[in-house]
């Protein structure tokens, strides 16, 4: 599953960027998107859309929604999850796909300067775990920062053979 947001849209058609990440493509739309209803309907033909009428306060809220609503779809897809906040090209997806294949049990993140998650990847073993949606449902403090969320995810889900 690939989760992207409206900031990707300007480079969508030119780059054909999504071909390197098969499976469901989820487009997050924020209140400042400027998209008309007709445009949203049009985009919905290509993407599963999650439209926020108020911005989610953090990544925990966003992933809680995505994995809550798309839980069954994600498990049936059986592949890794990649979230990218912003524009990207096909090359980046190819690179992520490669890394994902090598680390199916990893949770890897890149943080932006403002402390928000810029990229988050759940390897296949983590992404298909039935515990992942439960994790977001049971978060005792849904207002946690993105950095702490990543730490928690890595603590709980990231494992290695010893």
């Amino acid at each position, binding site marked *: 599953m690939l989760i992207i947001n409206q900031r990707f849209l300007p480079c969508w058609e030119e780059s054909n960027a999504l071909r390197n990440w098969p499976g469901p493509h989820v487009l997050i739309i924020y209140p400042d998107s400027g998209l008309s*209803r007709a445009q949203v309907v049009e985009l*919905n033909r290509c993407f*599963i859309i999650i*439209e*926020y*009428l*108020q911005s*989610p306060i953090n990544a925990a809220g966003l992933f809680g929604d995505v994995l*809550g*609503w798309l839980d069954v779809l994600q498990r049936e897809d059986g592949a890794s999850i990649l979230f990218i906040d912003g524009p990207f090209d096909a090359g980046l997806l190819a690179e992520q796909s490669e890394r994902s294949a090598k680390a199916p049990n990893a949770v890897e993140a890149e943080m932006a300067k403002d402390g928000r998650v810029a990229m988050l990847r759940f390897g296949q073993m983590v992404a298909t775990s039935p515990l992942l949606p439960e994790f977001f449902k049971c978060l005792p403090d849904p207002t946690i920062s993105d950095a702490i969320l990543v730490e928690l995810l890595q603590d709980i889900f990231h494992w290695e053979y010893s």
Partner: protein
Amino acid sequence: MIDIDLIWRKYATTAGIIDQRPDFRFDPKFYGSYHPQHKDDIKFLKCHYDQEGKAGGLKANLYDYLSAASSDINPRLTKLVTDADLAAAIEQGAPGSLELACELIYLGEPVDMAMSNFSMSAYLLAYPDIAKAGVNPLLHYLLHGAAEGRQTLADLRQSQYAGDVAYSPDRPTCIIAVHEFSRTGAPIVGLDLAREASQTHNVIVVSLLNGPLLDEFRKHASEVVVTNRPLIDFTFYSGEIFSKIDFAITNSVECYPMFPLLVSKNIPFVSYIHEYTEYTYPLYKTVYTALFADMIVFSSDHVRQSWHGVLRDVGFDKDRDSTIIPQRECVMGAVDGPGFLEARERLSERVGRDLSNVRLVCGAGHLQWRKGTDIFAMAAQICAQRDPNTVFIWIGDGLNAEDVNFGTWINYHLRQLGAGDPENNFFLLPAGTLYPDVLKASDAMFVSSRLDPLPNVVFDALDSGCRIVQFANATGFGDQRYLDTGYFTSVEYGNPEAAATAILALPRKMPTAEKTGRVSAPPRLFDRISAVLDERLKAQRYFVRGASEIDVPMLFSREAEDRDLRTREREKTIRYSRRLLWRDIREVREELARSDNWIHRKCRIAPYRTVAQSDVPAFSMHIHAYYTDEIADDLKKYRAYHLAQRIVVTTDSQKKGDEITQMMEAEGLKAEIVLVPNKGRDILPFMDLFREGGAAGDDEIWCHIHQKKSLGTTDKGDIWRRFLLRILLGDDKTLSGAIAKIGDEDVGLVAPLDPFFIPWNASRNLLPKFASRLPGPMPENPLVFPIGNMFWVRRPVVLAMNAVFGDTYSWPNEPIANDGTEFHLIERLWPAMSTHCDLNSVFVHKLDEQRA
């Protein structure tokens, strides 16, 4: 001896206060009220209590305070405790055990309801007077409430019954909801669902009403609850099963009280629908089902067709979000020869007539108009003339001669035709053990129902090899899948003669040589319904999160504490593109722009504003005042009345007219009273003013308002009326821009924009009748119109409306229905008339004005 400190540590840890309060015997929060300036200094407070407070008579905790106030506290606390260890400690007289009980309950959620039958929040929910007074609920209950007989969780938990099937955390959990536990069609289907579901799922059965099927349901569930307010009560039921519910099936449209719970907790659900909309009132039951069910499964296509209008009106995608699954498979069975003869023998003995060689026709069900028991009797009368060897038996209860709606008349009818006389051909049997014999012995079943979704008795009759005669367009068995089997004969609707002819033409039943058992396969209803829901949820490609601009309650209340729940209900409807409310003003504009209907091309949206008196054109006002009690108040509240060049008031008696005149005079206004009959609600009196010689004269601009109680009988109605008047008129100091807007030469109609998206509803049925009189085709949805029938209008627009109906139209007399009359249609036609006059209709929005 039980260590009560251990009990405290367990619950205090759960509550997250063990560090601040290691010992229940001292409550720093309670003691802090003596020393507000040190309320956060736990060490100081404890020290103060030990050194001075205790000796000075200050109380260490709530129990200390309460036990000093009343000696009844201890027995009341004893009754509340449910924690087994604590209850044992109390029974053993362990020192401090009652104090512990009190202090634990006083911790509130989640501790209170986990260890006792008292919940602080449930008590306040149940008794808003106590919440309003700001009284501590535990204190109130122990000192007063118990003596007053106020309820606790113990009463609520009496509606929770343990089921026979053990809960398993490894299984998914589902709710099967039925409206009652009676032995009638829908609850029996619900029982089948629960039986099947319990093989693979944890099952919570919810019923809105108790009844004789309770014990049957308990056999196939882990928990059974009977509640008509599930949203509240589910918070307080005990058991892990209630903590994670995966989905629900609400079986019957009558289960709509489940929706607030399901929507609030994001529990996806299927509504399994057996009811026709024609007899499902109030309308909101069907509307809410269409709005909030993730999927609607209908038992037959004929039932779904009946829902067509409701589904269209809320934008429900019928192909995507509904399907047909009958509650049983249709299989023609047979009866063995001996079984057939024995059944006939037993029936002969029972009715006193030899039935061994007759053509036997059965009917089954509760005696009522809907089942057409009267038509069944008429068919029997017709057959008696044509073939004396044909006998009719109706098996069912409900004959009550004191029921003047039906029982009186069918009772008399049956007496006249000699029902039950062995010389006659009609017999009535009570429901019960003879039912299998009736089906085995009958050659055919005549389904005389006027509307009957998919009655189980027909499946039973088919199992017993009976052929079926029914009316076309009367039951779900009119679906092609049944007609194709060759077992069904459909005849003209409501025609007993046609039914009799068809019955007499049927072949007689041919019993088989060998005994046969039940032929139909056991239903796999639950599997099919849950699979349909799964597929639907998986296919969803659009989700929305957050509060849309227009915040008006649907399932929940308008109170601030329900704000998140209101957001949740809107999220769900927007997700599925269903609509009872507009999402925002942008959506209204976009919908109007998208519509290709001629009416909408001249509909405009404008924000509310106030204007100066100099901006206001000359205008007249019409008030229809069937009720007069709010007029005096209105005259004070709205300055606009004082600027009208004329105020014409229609009412239905001189007495009311005099009263209104006095009220007007008290405000320095002059009313022109026109007496009219109570006919045509508020709108016909207004339209009549514009007929030849009418009081409207040549005045061009009119405001039409009314005092009808349909808007004002409830709190909600008062709010709605204020909403309309505020937008149309302004207030006691200001003038609404709506008045200036109607002064624009290109504007023919100005009305408030309603946040509700109100469709044609029952008025849709009248559209064909008026199609040729209207200037153009009507839109699929009216989108905007003066909901509530108060507006500003120009004279030509009213004349155009009068022209549609002409001078001799036969208007219906009062009393009339709440929807679907000509007057409800007129409400929706004003924009059409305005466009027809080449004038714009302007709808003014004011989102900060409460609408509901």
